[in-house]
């Protein structure tokens, strides 16, 4: 019996080694998931650095003096809602509903931009008080960790812009669907990293 004669209904009873190659969508999803996990491991190193250095202020401003919990709460809600709307957009992609896809992705993008504007104003406010990365080990670690997350959000927004252009150009082709699926995974993973940021950096400061 060759693989070509195996019907899809039989495949569940076959041993894993005889089932043949997995569908492209499953392989792409798995590969991107591995990338995300390695990205999270990079963040874990930055978190460990921050946790070690968070008290080393070198006589400069400390976390509780600099952090504004109200603004952080607004950033958190922006990112959480954008994660939710990107999920709704993914459902619209499944239904091949172009209008809903565009609408939810544009809402996602607006919330992502709002997050970056809030974060940018926070950084500008800190810099105006002399709290720049070179001031102390604490501030170096802070800007590296929070800045890396911010850069991830920015690159996610650029990716989403490209994907919107691809939907306009190619429609919901399998290739475009797979990329949109990976974008969804990326965006949700960024929100998971942000949970660590607001808990350890902002709420853990005392």
């Amino acid at each position, binding site marked *: 019996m060759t693989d070509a004669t195996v019907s899809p209904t039989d495949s569940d009873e076959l041993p894993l080694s005889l089932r043949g190659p997995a*569908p*492209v*969508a*499953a392989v792409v*999803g*798995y590969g991107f*998931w*591995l990338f995300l*996990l*390695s990205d*999270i*491991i990079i963040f*874990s*190193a930055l*978190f*460990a*650095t921050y*946790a*070690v250095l968070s008290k080393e202020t070198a006589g400069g401003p400390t976390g509780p003096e600099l952090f504004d*919990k109200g603004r952080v*709460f607004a950033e*958190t*809600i922006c990112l*959480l*809602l954008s*994660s*939710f709307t990107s*999920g*709704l957009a993914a*459902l619209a992609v*499944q*239904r*091949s509903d*172009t209008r809903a896809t565009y609408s939810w992705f544009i809402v996602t993008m607006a919330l992502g931009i709002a997050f970056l504007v809030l974060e940018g104003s926070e950084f500008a406010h800190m810099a105006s008080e002399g709290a720049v990365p070179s001031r102390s080990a604490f501030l170096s670690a802070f800007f590296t960790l929070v800045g890396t997350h911010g850069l991830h959000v920015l690159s996610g927004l650029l990716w989403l812009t490209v994907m919107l252009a691809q939907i306009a150009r*190619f*429609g*919901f*082709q*399998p290739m475009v*669907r*797979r990329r949109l*699926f990976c974008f969804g*995974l990326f965006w*949700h*993973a960024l*929100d*998971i990293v942000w*949970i*660590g940021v*607001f*808990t*350890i950096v902002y*709420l*853990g400061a005392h």
Partner: protein
Amino acid sequence: MATNTQEPTPDSGETPHENARSYFAGLVFALILTGASFWASSTHLVYAPGIPILLAVLAIAQMGVHLVFFLRISSAPDQVNNFLALVFGVFVVGLIVFGSLLIMTNLNHAMMPTMKQLIQMQR
């Protein structure tokens, strides 16, 4: 133009209706847990030294909510590979974070001058 070409996406095992319900449930749980975290960080109702542990529990719970309801990770048979990779990732993250903290705390302790050295420094 093949705008309606259907290919099974990795999460197409359920109906869109069930998926939408999952996202809504995830949003509600995440909002509750986020609110609880911000409340816990500034309340005086909780024994103060216990607050970091409470925050850690709330954060881990919210990460779990995001993984299950947003990223749709489960221990279902078709997700074994994803799940195993996640478990390994969590293991490495734990090693890096707790290992670094443990080593650096020990180092700080070892670098602390002893009383004898302090007296010598004052001379």
